[in-house]
């Protein structure tokens, strides 16, 4: 059979964080890829905040890194400062974050997608998706050009019928100053998918020289940072500071007086916005008793002369934004380079997807990123990577990558997206993960290496780095089984002011004390193991920390594993795709409706669908597995 031309194994629409990860992993897996974007110059652009990682998101980046993604590596090339968040709490919720240089980040992504021979970047706007025989066959561009493919990944971000609001002024755009895209929504709808609207916002960018930094407090990064990626070995970060200032009652009064001009309150915005990232007018409206809200001044890129005003997301008119901000002493002479704005866009409720991110009804069609109702670079990149891997597996006729709630935050996200109702942009939180204590940033490799290995997502060298770290961690855990004499132990305990022991004991017993660290056993464990390893020093240190965590959290880790065991049988039970729920008389009406739409892949997923009761699951399990 003659192949139509031009043909690609995979076409990726959109070049944001999802699109870049998807394209690169497909190329890495040996496929030919075309990345179609309206503006090739904006590939890898960070539309909003100048940072990567954060609570729960730092863990996501770590997982992306282990599964062969680029986000962690590029962060390390562009970082301006690093900070380990939640350090004052337990180690299972520590999360790394980096402020990055947006320009370098973008350039590095572009450099990577431009170099592979098998990846062609195409300037164009997709207006139609072609299908044949229930599967995707290609796309039509606005220019009329037709492209053919086996698999298609759509990652359009906020561009689908994007509408920007600033006060009462509305502009059609995908991002400030960039054209929106029109046609994909309509094409997907004609294929039977349903869409809805969401909203998000971004704060103003202000001129650095107009800020009085003497009236701000400084927020520096960590002095001894560790890189994001497991594979970064050359690494230096300038540790540029961020600054913090506050709004005051005058600011609030000005905003209150102009509340009626915010499209969020006039009813002009139809889409629901994220509650965890509220606009300043929302914060003032909902918490009228608060006299101040913190504002974080973060550099956009090095020597940019621009600051991102985190904490002041808004869609108020530009004049109100300026007036309200000038009431803040540090911003008395403020000059606005770009106003904050709200943007509404189309998304496709992700219950129409399988956990592989392939659509349930059109084979070979994958959706990833904000089009699935999520928010955040990390969430988007993670989905892009998973969609990319699974599109490749689809083309190569191999088994898909299936992540689970117990092995990763990515797995939690995919399961949540496909089973729950999306009422607001979805962002990852650690509390969404019921097995949070197991999903640490510092053990991503041991949780996911089996997948990277099975699906060939990493180079040999990368795989060996991860394996070395796992081995080192295990070796250090075993080393703690060794008993030390009473004298040796008390020598250490005395130094750190801990109660002494009366007889010789294994190190592990002492390490379980809350205030004792593995570093206290420098000569007995660390020196020997850290000297012998060829790992980058910060990765080796992380292995030591991980060993310590495994010992200290032992009881809790066991309890979480017991919880997993309890549910494992139900999570493994598959439900046939065409199962007729309406035929099961005893199911509740709501369960019948929800399950018929969502078509869960396993009984465990069915259990998590909102509106489905345990009794429904009991009934279902009998009819499925009698």
């Amino acid at each position, binding site marked *: 059979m003659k192949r139509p031309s031009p043909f690609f194994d995979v076409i990726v629409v959109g070049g944001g964080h999802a699109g870049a990860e998807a394209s690169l992993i497909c190329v890495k897996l040996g496929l030919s890829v075309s990345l179609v974007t309206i503006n090739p110059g904006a590939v890898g652009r960070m539309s909003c905040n100048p940072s990567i990682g954060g609570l729960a998101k730092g863990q996501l980046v770590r997982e992306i890194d282990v599964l062969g993604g680029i986000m962690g590596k590029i962060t390390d090339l562009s970082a301006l400062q690093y900070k380990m*968040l939640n350090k004052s709490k337990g180690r299972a919720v520590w999360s790394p974050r980096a402020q990055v240089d947006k320009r370098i980040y973008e350039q590095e992504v572009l450099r990577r997608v431009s170099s592979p021979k098998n990846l062609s970047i195409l300037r164009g706007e997709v207006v139609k998706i072609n299908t044949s025989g229930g599967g995707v066959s290609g796309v039509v561009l606005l220019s009329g050009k037709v492209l053919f493919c086996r698999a298609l990944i759509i990652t359009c971000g906020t561009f689908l019928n994007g509408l920007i609001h600033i006060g009462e002024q509305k502009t059609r755009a995908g991002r400030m100053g960039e054209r929106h895209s029109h046609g994909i929504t309509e094409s997907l709808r004609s294929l039977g998918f349903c869409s809805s609207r969401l909203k998000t916002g971004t704060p103003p960018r202000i001129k650095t020289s107009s800020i009085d930094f003497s009236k701000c407090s400084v927020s520096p990064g960590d002095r001894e940072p560790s890189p994001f990626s497991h594979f970064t070995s050359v690494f230096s970060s300038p540790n540029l500071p961020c600054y913090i200032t506050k709004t005051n009652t005058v600011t609030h009064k000005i905003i209150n007086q102009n509340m009626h001009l915010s499209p969020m309150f006039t009813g002009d915005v139809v889409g629901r916005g994220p509650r965890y990232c*509220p606009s300043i007018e929302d914060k003032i409206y909902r918490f009228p008793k608060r006299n101040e809200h913190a504002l974080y001044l973060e550099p956009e890129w090095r020597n940019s002369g621009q600051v991102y005003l985190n904490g002041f997301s808004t869609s108020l008119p530009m004049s109100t934004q300026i007036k309200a901000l000038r009431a803040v002493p540090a911003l008395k002479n403020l000059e606005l380079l770009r106003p904050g704005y709200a943007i509404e866009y189309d998304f496709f409720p992700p219950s129409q997807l399988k956990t592989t991110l392939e659509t349930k009804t059109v084979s070979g069609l994958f959706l990833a990123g904000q089009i699935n109702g999520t928010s955040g670079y990390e969430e988007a990149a993670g989905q892009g990577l998973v969609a990319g891997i699974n599109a490749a597996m689809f083309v190569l006729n191999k088994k898909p990558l299936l992540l689970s709630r117990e092995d990763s935050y990515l797995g939690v996200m995919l399961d949540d997206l496909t089973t729950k109702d999306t009422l607001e942009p979805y962002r990852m939180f650690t509390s969404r993960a019921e097995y949070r204590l197991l999903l640490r940033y510092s053990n991503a490799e041991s949780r996911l290496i089996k997948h990277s290995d099975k699906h060939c997502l990493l180079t040999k060298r990368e795989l060996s780095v991860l394996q070395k770290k796992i081995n080192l961690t295990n070796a250090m855990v075993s080393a703690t089984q060794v008993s030390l004499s009473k004298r040796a132990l008390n020598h250490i305990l005395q130094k750190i002011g801990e109660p002494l022991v009366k007889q010789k004991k294994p190190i592990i017993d002492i390490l379980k004390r809350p205030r004792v660290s593995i570093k206290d056993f420098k000569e007995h464990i660390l020196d020997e193991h850290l000297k012998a390893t060829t790992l980058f020093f910060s990765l080796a240190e992380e292995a030591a920390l991980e060993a310590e965590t495994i010992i200290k959290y032992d009881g809790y880790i066991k309890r979480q594993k017991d919880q997993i065991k309890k549910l494992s*049988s139900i999570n493994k039970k598959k439900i046939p795709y065409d199962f007729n729920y309406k035929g099961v008389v005893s199911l509740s009406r709501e369960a019948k409706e929800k399950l018929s739409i969502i078509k869960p892949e396993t009984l465990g997923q069915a259990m998590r669908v909102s509106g489905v009761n345990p009794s429904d699951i009991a009934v279902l399990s009998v009819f499925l597995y009698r």
Partner: protein
Amino acid sequence: MILSDTIVAVATPHGFGGISVIRISGPDSKNIIKKISLTNRKNKQFKHQAVTLVNIIDNDGLPFEESVVTFFKKPHSYTGEDTIEVSCHGNPSIVNRIVSLCCTSGARPADPGEFTKRAFLNGKMDLVQAEAVASLIHSKTAEGASLNFKILCGDLSKEMNTIKKELKDLLVKIEFELDISEDCLQPNLVSRSLLSLKTIQATIKTALESHNSVRMLNDGANVVICGAPNAGKSTLLNCLSGIDRAITGPEAGTTRDTIRASISIGGTPVTLIDTAGLRVSKNKIEKEGVVRTKKEITRSDCVLALTPADIPIKKKHLKISSGPTIHVITKADLCTKKKIFYFKNKFPSACIISAKTSFGVPKLLDALQKHMGLFSSLSPIVPVTTGRQNLILKKISCCIQKSTNLLSSKGNPQLELVSFELRDALEQIDAVLGKTSTDEILNSVFGSFCVGK
């Protein structure tokens, strides 16, 4: 709906009997019986469909009961799972002890109907039966939730709800710390959390203490017989216990000390307490007797206030206790039918009896059962649920204690572990009150804190 745990319940009607059977079903049943028993035949024990004679041992390893154990290997059992049946002496306190030993060794008290449900889920029924049970399970969900709630909690429901609310509020504050606030802790978070944990612990303690039916089932109920001198208290005690336990006589003040007799009502052990007649006396011994009577009244689960039919009834005779009280009009054998009819009209809630002829005694026993909230002997619900209540409260208390320890230890508070303990506690309550989802907690976080940069 998790089939991987092991459940336990009494399979025979509650109460005294020749033998009682306790059924344990689930993957751990064999381990559990091994943990709580001793047997001579080490190697041959617990073969499929064979009986093994064992000694049941308490937590200290001391045997207290000889029982016969039968093992059924899956799928050849009623539920389709590994099942153990323990046949022991039919004494409620022994039965309850064995059930609670099973629970501390890893079993969970079964929900009403759960054995049948498991049989159904394990495909031990044909399609017609299965469909019938399926629709039953379904129709019982809504009703069952409220029924469970009522039965499981009874007067504890208020406390359970308070505990749940406090747990949730605390969890929201902690999740805010973990998910939103990036570094510094809210000021006073630790001290305030410790305070709320203390409050919750206190609530649990009172709930455990104040809940009578639990104690009644384990130790039996106390019923105090009191009234004016010569009202026929001792005669009633003798009548109910069926023996001449107390000396009776026509003179007022025959009984000066409290006298006890044990009987069983609807399977629940009941201690009847005969008391000295309530009157003002100068006699030292009789005075002391009255003091003791008053003490017994405050400690009782139910009071029988006796007024003889041949003496005018005064209001003060009926108001002896603030707790459950049954008005008993005695000496009905001295009355005409007309007089009895008059009493029935004037005191509709009273029991009119004659201890001499046993007239009206069955009705008095019914009334006693109702007043103490005891179910009929055929209902297996009582021991299961009360055991369950206790278990739930104790588990919650354990989680709270662990959270307190975590927050009290030096260094950075391991809030994610505290959250884990609190979620565990919530899950216990949820088993009774319905599910708290992750989204519910997140929603509260968004609702009560100004989140986001």
